[in-house]
């Protein structure tokens, strides 16, 4: 399918006027900005920059999807249009994926102010983050005020995506380890708001105390912006604690706006996008160049001749081929 600017502009206009089919199609197109006419991306981005992007992360099974599902009506009640980007892993074996986050969010299917889109991690590395960042720009341009991005774990891709979020929710649950576990590097370091979900379970109070102790000691959470991370005990399944959590999310949004961080985050997500996009171009160029000289290199590799030297040669030629990229 070839993409031309005027058709894309019509599609964008339809999406802005509430045509959900157009929005769905545009998201597919934005998933791989590599194929997009550069002017079109600017057209989208020029209309974006106002949305509040909320990253929701945490271990598998912590209840992220259920939490989002219960948070949506709370955010809707406050008048925001809500978009959700739900990321699930791709099978490294078959390349297929079972995207099941949506299963827990189907209550909102009839609400025109909610849009849920599932994405798989696919070929990974830069691909996922690039897709997610690009889709954030579109949702933002279409006037969704709250964009929730749900992802598992702490890989590089997640860190890239979370760097684009204004507010990061880290979701955990009772019974997944002691206080040392809570201090481990990674996901527990990046939260603005910590959510202890499933607080209806027996060990909830103990887990809450571990977490609040770690927070008090400053061993948990992100303090870079001067915000003191908060901890909430909720039960998404029972719908408990959602109003307080939504209040905290809004409070964090006002805080980062007041110190000018909200705008910086928009710039930072676009910087990440530029970096990932250039990595993408380089990768493609290297793969193509490598494919071209593979047979020739095989002989050299067997003779142990110039193995590392060839690497820089391939890289150099790949860069040279990049000069032939379509003009931007």
């Amino acid at each position, binding site marked *: 399918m070839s*993409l031309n600017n005027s058709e*894309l502009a019509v599609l964008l206009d339809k999406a802005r006027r509430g045509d*959900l089919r157009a929005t769905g199609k545009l998201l597919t197109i934005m998933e791989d900005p590599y194929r997009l006419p550069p002017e079109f991306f600017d057209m989208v981005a020029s209309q974006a920059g106002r949305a509040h992007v909320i990253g929701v992360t945490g271990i598998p099974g912590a209840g992220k999807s259920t939490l989002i599902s219960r948070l949506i009506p709370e955010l809707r009640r406050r008048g925001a249009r809500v978009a959700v980007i739900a990321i699930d892993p791709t099978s490294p074996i*078959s390349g297929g*994926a*079972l995207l099941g986050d*949506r*299963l827990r969010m*189907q209550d909102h*299917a009839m609400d025109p102010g909610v849009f849920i889109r599932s994405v798989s991690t696919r070929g990974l590395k830069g691909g996922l983050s690039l897709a997610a960042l690009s889709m954030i720009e579109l949702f933002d341009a279409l006037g969704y005020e709250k964009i929730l991005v749900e992802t598992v774990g702490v890989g590089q891709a997640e860190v890239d995506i979370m760097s684009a979020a204004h507010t990061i929710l880290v979701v955990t649950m009772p019974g997944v380890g002691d206080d040392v576990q809570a201090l481990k590097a990674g996901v527990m370091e990046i939260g603005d708001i910590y959510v202890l979900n499933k607080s209806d379970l027996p060990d909830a109070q103990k887990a809450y105390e571990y977490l609040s102790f770690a927070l008090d000691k400053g061993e948990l959470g992100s303090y870079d912006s001067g915000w003191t991370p908060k901890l909430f005990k909720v039960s998404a399944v029972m719908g408990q604690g959602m109003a307080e959590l939504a209040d905290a999310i809004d409070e964090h949004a006002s805080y980062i706006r007041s110190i000018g961080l909200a705008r910086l985050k928009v710039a930072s997500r676009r910087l990440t996008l530029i970096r990932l996009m250039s990595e993408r171009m380089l990768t493609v160029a290297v793969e193509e160049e490598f494919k071209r000289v593979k047979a020739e290199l095989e002989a050299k590799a067997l003779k142990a001749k110039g193995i590392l030297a060839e690497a820089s040669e391939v890289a150099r030629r790949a860069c040279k081929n990049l000069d032939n990229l379509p003009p931007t």
Partner: protein
Amino acid sequence: MSSPQYIEERPFKVIVAKIGLDGHDRGAKVIARALKDAGFEVVYTGIRQTPEQVARAAVEEDADVIGISILSGAHIHHIQRLMEKLKEMGADDIPVVVGGTIPVIDVDKLKELGVKDVFLPGESLRRITDVIRTLAEERRRKVRLL
């Protein structure tokens, strides 16, 4: 096994859903799993969905194919409604297949409603994934922006 950093061709995206008051989801889950193993991206929406919910999911996900599992006997009613909803949302170009305990005499009725294929009890997973792949490929060839 190769693991490319970027997959050039987007995998086919299939919605697997159960419509109506019918909680028997073993079949739908087996299909979802088989499709995943065959390299599809499967969005599983779960049980007791309305036709409206399924149409909306297909639109939001920009699905290539919709697979509906029904064991309640209300297939004609629900599928008719689903087709109407898809049309209403400008998504009637997304092919729909149906599986479940469908009486043989209803197969043609479903096809008249626009269903591309109907899978009866005992159908092989191989044929189901093959049919869905062919439908997805056809749709990708025809797909238009506007």
